[in-house]
């Protein structure tokens, strides 16, 4: 059965950041230089070809974009300036918008103003909700940061946290199932046993926590930077969810706080490094910046910064009202970051990437069993 070519898909991908994709004339230098390109995943050339020809269903069913970590070597080697690295990035954005069933993701990627508006809206709703919670429900006062009479009492914040977490988990789960369906579930030619699913399930938390594949890129610094930001963020989430009371107690619990400090340094340092990098554009993967990338970084940096202000105002300066205002602004950064970016935008990669690694192993094992010749093709790598 012949597949219909759809030349219109490229126009759509341009809004996701892909540019000059048609320049690619398939010399294959990109895949030759990519450290991850190996049958059955030919990165990035296969994705470039599927995109050029507009094979939408095929593209939706691939997860090669998630196996790429944008080291940028391919873009550097490309003799035609077809930017395969940025194309893979735009494909990640596009896939994110496809896994989402609501269509909101698509809207946000098409129009950064819509996403900005959504962020601002959620921010304002958060502000209103917290103010309502603080002043009417909790009967707190502005001058009390922690303990009894606090403006934003811990037990209420917990409820909000858990509710938000629950909602996001549900959305991510739905989207992940959709990703599984598009790439694996609906593929009649691939037979993956239940045992294969079970025995490889450890890969999910493993990749989630370590981003191990990223560490296999030739340049280690991007992986380390990302790991630092990620671990800092996870640390903060764990601390906030489990040890919120510790933060708000008058005594300094060093065991908890040292992690907090490290995490804050990690977050702030990492995001500032990334922002500076994107302004200077010296690294290949920093040359192209989509508005969603800026929003992501600014929100995290803002959250980290307001966290410091809270801490400093409460603990060192004793200015509870300032701390509370910082707390409010902090939530106005954090809630949109989580509520908008996790289900509909960039942060969703925290689910899709580990899932892609898991599925890649399942696919490879299944193919090895079905077509040993293809699975064993190992490209010859010359010594560097």
């Amino acid at each position, binding site marked *: *059965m*012949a*597949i*219909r*070519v759809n*030349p*219109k898909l*490229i126009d759509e991908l341009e809004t996701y950041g892909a540019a*000059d994709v*048609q*320049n*690619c*004339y*398939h010399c294959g230098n990109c895949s030759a230089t990519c450290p991850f390109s190996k049958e059955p995943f030919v990165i990035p050339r*296969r994705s470039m*070809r*599927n995109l*050029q*020809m507009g*094979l939408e269903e095929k593209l939706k069913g691939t997860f090669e974009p998630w196996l790429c970590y944008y080291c940028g070597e391919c873009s550097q080697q490309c003799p*035609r300036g077809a930017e395969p690295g940025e194309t893979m990035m735009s494909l990640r954005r596009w896939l994110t918008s496809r896994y989402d069933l609501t269509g909101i993701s698509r809207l946000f990627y098409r129009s950064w103003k819509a996403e900005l508006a959504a962020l601002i809206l959620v921010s304002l709703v958060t502000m209103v909700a917290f103010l309502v919670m603080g002043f009417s429900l909790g009967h707190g006062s502005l001058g009390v940061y922690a303990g009894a009479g606090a403006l934003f009492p811990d037990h209420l914040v917990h409820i909000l946290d858990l509710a938000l977490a629950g909602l996001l988990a549900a959305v991510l789960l739905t989207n992940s199932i959709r990703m599984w369906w598009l790439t694996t579930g609906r593929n009649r030619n691939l037979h993956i046993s239940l045992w294969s699913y079970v025995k490889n399930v450890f890969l999910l938390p493993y990749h989630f926590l370590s981003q191990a594949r990223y560490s296999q890129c030739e340049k280690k610094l991007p992986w380390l930077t990302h790991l630092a930001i990620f671990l800092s963020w996870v640390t903060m989430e764990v601390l906030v969810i489990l040890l919120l009371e510790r933060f708000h107690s008058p005594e300094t619990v060093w065991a908890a706080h040292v992690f907090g400090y490290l995490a804050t340094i990690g977050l702030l340092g990492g995001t500032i490094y990334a922002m500076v990098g994107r302004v200077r554009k010296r690294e290949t993967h920093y040359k192209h910046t989509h508005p969603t990338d800026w929003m992501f970084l600014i929100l995290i940096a803002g959250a980290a910064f307001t966290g410091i202000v809270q801490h400093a105002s409460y603990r060192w300066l004793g200015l509870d009202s300032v701390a509370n205002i910082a707390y409010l602004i902090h939530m106005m950064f954090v809630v949109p970051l989580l509520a908008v970016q996790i289900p509909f935008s960039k942060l969703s990669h925290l689910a899709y990437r580990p899932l892609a690694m898991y599925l890649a192993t399942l696919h490879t094992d299944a193919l090895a069993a079905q077509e040993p010749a293809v699975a064993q093709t190992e490209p010859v790598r010359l010594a560097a």
Partner: protein
Amino acid sequence: MEELKIGVFICNCGSNIAHHVDVDAVREAVEAKPGVAIARSYKYMCSNPGQDMIARDIREHQLNRVVVAACSPRMHEKTFRNACRNGGLNPYLCEMANIREQCSWVHSDQLAATEKAKALTNAAINRVRYHEPLESLTAEMCPATLVIGGGIAGLTAALELADAAHQVYLVERTATLGGNLARVDLTAPHLDSARDLLTERITRVRANSRITLMLNSELQSLAGYVGNYAAIIRTKNGSGEVQERKVDVGNVVVATGYQEFDAGRITHYGHGKLPNVVTSFEFEQMLRKGRIETRHGKLPQYAAIIHCVGSRNKEFHPYCSRVCCMTALKYAHELKSANPACYVSDIYVDMHAFGKGHEDFYKTTSEVKTLFLMFEKNERPVVRKAGPNDDCEMLIEVNETLSRERIEIPADLIILMVGMEARADSGEVARLVNISQDKEGWFMESHPKLDPVATTTDGIYIAGTCAAPKDIPDTVAQARAAAARILGKIAKGKIEIDGVFAEVNEDRCSGCRMCNELCPYSAIEFNDETRRSHVIPAACKACGACVAACPSGAIKGRHFTVEQLHAQIDGVLA
């Protein structure tokens, strides 16, 4: 016969000959032969010191014959004849023995190779005894030139010659000048107007008083030889009247061009059946009219261009037609600039971007978002009409090699890049001017690398696409090259005719006239008064057909006489 003093020079050619042939043994064997004054061997006989050695030895030893046992005479006959000339010896008193290409390089048995080398050298020594000093003849060179074909090649050649103040007769078959280029709108890769290119030429040709323009004319016959041709041109005027005119020319430039492949021969492309499948020339018509549209008058939303139609295929023509890839890119540009919303697919086999600016042109065509799809040249795409629910007129199905998928490409308009082929009447032209055609019908040049505009018939030159598919820069280069060669000849004033030709001994000639019809160059004439045949030396090409055929043995083939050949046969078997 005078006392013979033969100098034998045996070349080592480094180790090329010396490795398998015992050169010293050969030298010893020939030293003792009667008439051999000296026998030498040297590393590289063709080098300057080697040639000087021959010249010196001729003078010092008063040699009157020279034998060089070395590489093939096709390689260095001229070199050693020159060395003899430098030594004061007539160049035809030299003979070569091929002990490299036909001895040391093909026989690994040293003993056998050496014996053969001795035999071949011996044969050359035997033969050279019977060599005679031959002198070149001179004849007048008519400075007028006949140019056949009024396309860009013919126009360029004519102008080049006329600008150098020489008479040109430009013969064009149709009523207009410009040839195939006149059917084209823009040229690739710079998107210049073809009309501008041609108008400049045509205006200058018409204004030049030295160019006699003959439209609606064809060459009827061409007699004579280089420097002295008589051409008869037949012209048909508007009312069907035919006029014949005889012109005297010294040289001829054949610039008859090409014709395009008939796309209807590839049935599954649908040309002639589906209304929106057009050839490149039909598309050019649309471009010149300024409107790109389907047969139903609509702007095409999807356009597709298919390469290699009739080219690179054993079924039709095995060669590449050279210009179509860049022309296809030109069409992609023109489609996009006429309608930026049009989706253009370029369906190619390989992208031949060999010339100046071609790779850049390919890149800019990608940048305007042309989709390039590759197919294997023996698995051609199939075109069919689309269904009522499709948003396009036709669908092209093909195995796409870059993605390894079988795909369907939507198209409202399909442009077939038809290849070039030799004109149907090229055989007639070849016969008229006595040049050869290759297997595909293209006129053959004298040497594909070293002599691309001359032919093996002196005075006849070929330029442009009649010799092989090529683009405008190459066509113009060849036209100018042909003109330059002719100008060089005209500048010399006289032509030198090789001293090797056939001679009739009129005492022996019986007047049977068998030789008259045998000569492919019509170089033998019969004198009605003396009742004898004689050869026109300038026209004779020394093939020897008449020499072998003469029942009276009256014709002597200079430099290939019966004595010489018999001596050679005996020598080789001694």
